[in-house]
């Protein structure tokens, strides 16, 4: 039995544990987002990834200890890592002065490897290093900035296990927690469909999304993580901020949207060709449009906010998102935005339409690179435009997806 903070009921499709919003993403998105933010070595994003992981992990663990003051802190920290699909962590060789954190299994160390055809040239477990630093500080009752994690061994480079050395830490931005939320109430799910969203959500709620004995979540044909929304937000927004300083803001936004497209292709595509989909959702899908509605219903179980289809035709989707996690996080971290920030959602929405209307996901294509290239380089492909942005002060985020 794992010792964890409890999951807190939260409106608008948010999944919250220990005050930290959690969102499901798969190994391919984790790989592609990390690859994107690390593209330019001059940006110094390794430290941002580390610090974002440390901030969210520390906030969640401290909340867990407040909720479970009699439970051993080391068990809370190790169990939380495993529960959320990050792998297994061993904090036994740490002390208030530092030490070493062993990572016998790591999502970032192992599960990113199937996403590439070759070998990694650099470590991938910067998240683990940040989590390890937070966990050690938490276990020994020290402030969040006490430790930094330095990667000494990483499974992504062929090591049999990960190893993180604890060194002197540094201050960094804290997690904003649940961030800001809209006062608007989402409308009910789209009516003109045979897809029953409440029934789908109820069925998905019975599935086991906890990390297995290895601390991994192989589910829907992908390797999931139940990840910190504020981690994704911090590394994405800091990436755009640093790219903007070099005059490449729009390029950075396009890259993050591309990560969303990749997410849709692999996560949504994996879900829509999975046995779970066939069992729970496909029986309700009578038309191609129902595949869009079925996937939107599923997204509403992922912690990404409440997605609502407002208009759907074979050449157009209008989607409103209440409390999309990117907007909630941006408002919590930086205040009101000057530009739309929901890049993952924009890429995901376009990717969903591409899967259904261009790739023909209902015919179960092989979701390999050739398929991706064929779809996303097609003249028939869809792209998203932001019509409203919660981060900019609107009551919801609205995306218009068209060819």
């Amino acid at each position, binding site marked *: 039995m794992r010792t964890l903070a409890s999951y807190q009921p939260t409106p608008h499709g948010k999944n919250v544990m220990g005050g930290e919003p959690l969102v499901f993403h798969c190994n391919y998105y984790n790989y592609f987002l990390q690859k994107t933010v690390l593209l330019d070595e001059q940006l110094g994003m390794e430290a941002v990834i580390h610090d974002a992981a440390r901030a969210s992990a520390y906030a969640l663990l401290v909340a867990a200890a407040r909720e479970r003051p009699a439970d051993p802190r080391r068990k809370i920290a190790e169990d939380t890592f495993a529960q959320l699909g990050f792998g297994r962590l061993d904090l036994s060789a740490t002390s208030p002065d530092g030490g070493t954190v062993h990572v016998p299994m790591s999502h970032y160390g192992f*599960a990113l490897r*199937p996403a590439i055809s070759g070998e990694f040239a650099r470590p991938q477990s910067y998240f683990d290093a940040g989590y390890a630093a937070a966990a050690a500080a938490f276990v020994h009752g020290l402030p969040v900035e006490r430790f930094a994690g330095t990667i000494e061994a990483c499974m992504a480079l062929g090591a049999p296990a990960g190893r993180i050395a604890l060194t002197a830490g540094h201050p960094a931005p804290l997690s904003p927690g649940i961030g800001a939320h809209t006062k608007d109430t989402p409308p009910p799910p789209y009516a003109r469909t045979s897809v029953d969203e409440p029934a789908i959500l109820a069925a998905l709620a019975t599935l086991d999304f906890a990390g297995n004995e*290895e601390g991994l979540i*192989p589910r829907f044909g992908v390797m999931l993580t139940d990840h910190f929304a504020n981690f994704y937000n911090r590394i994405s927004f800091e990436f755009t901020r640093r790219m903007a300083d070099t005059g490449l803001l729009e390029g950075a936004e396009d890259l993050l949207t591309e990560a969303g497209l990749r997410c849709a292709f692999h996560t949504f*595509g994996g879900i829509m060709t999975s046995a779970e989909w066939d*069992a729970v959702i496909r029986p309700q899908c009578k038309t191609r449009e129902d595949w869009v509605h079925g996937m939107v219903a599923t997204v509403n179980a992922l912690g990404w906010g409440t997605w609502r289809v407002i208009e759907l035709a074979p050449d157009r989707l209008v989607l409103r998102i209440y409390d999309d996690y990117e907007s909630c996080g941006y408002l919590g971290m930086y205040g009101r935005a000057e530009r739309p920030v929901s890049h993952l959602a924009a890429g995901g929405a376009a990717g969903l339409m591409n899967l259904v209307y261009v790739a023909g996901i209902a015919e179960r294509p*092989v*979701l390999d690179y050739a398929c991706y290239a064929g779809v996303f380089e097609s003249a028939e492909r869809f792209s998203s435009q932001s019509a409203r942005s919660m981060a900019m002060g609107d009551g919801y985020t609205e995306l218009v997806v068209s060819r």
Partner: protein
Amino acid sequence: MTFSVASDPSCLRGLRFVYTAPGLDGDRVLAQLRTAYRGKLVEGHEQWGEVLVRRAIVQFRFEVQLGARPDELALIHRVSASPAQRATDRAILELALGAT
């Protein structure tokens, strides 16, 4: 019994294999696995909508899912399982499928 096997081409590459066997008898496959793994097989089930999925796990080695689709079972290796263990586990499963 004859069967075919397809490996996952994407996010679970090298870990997930889907076996298709017309007339698959899940009870007999599980019985064979219980015998082969003598007390190590942990069994459970999950309700996926209208579908009951049976799960059989040997910790740190593999999971088998039965019943998700007709005439189909999925074998998902644990990451910790060595290549030799994975080959052994696939051979045992295929023997069980062939014997039913």
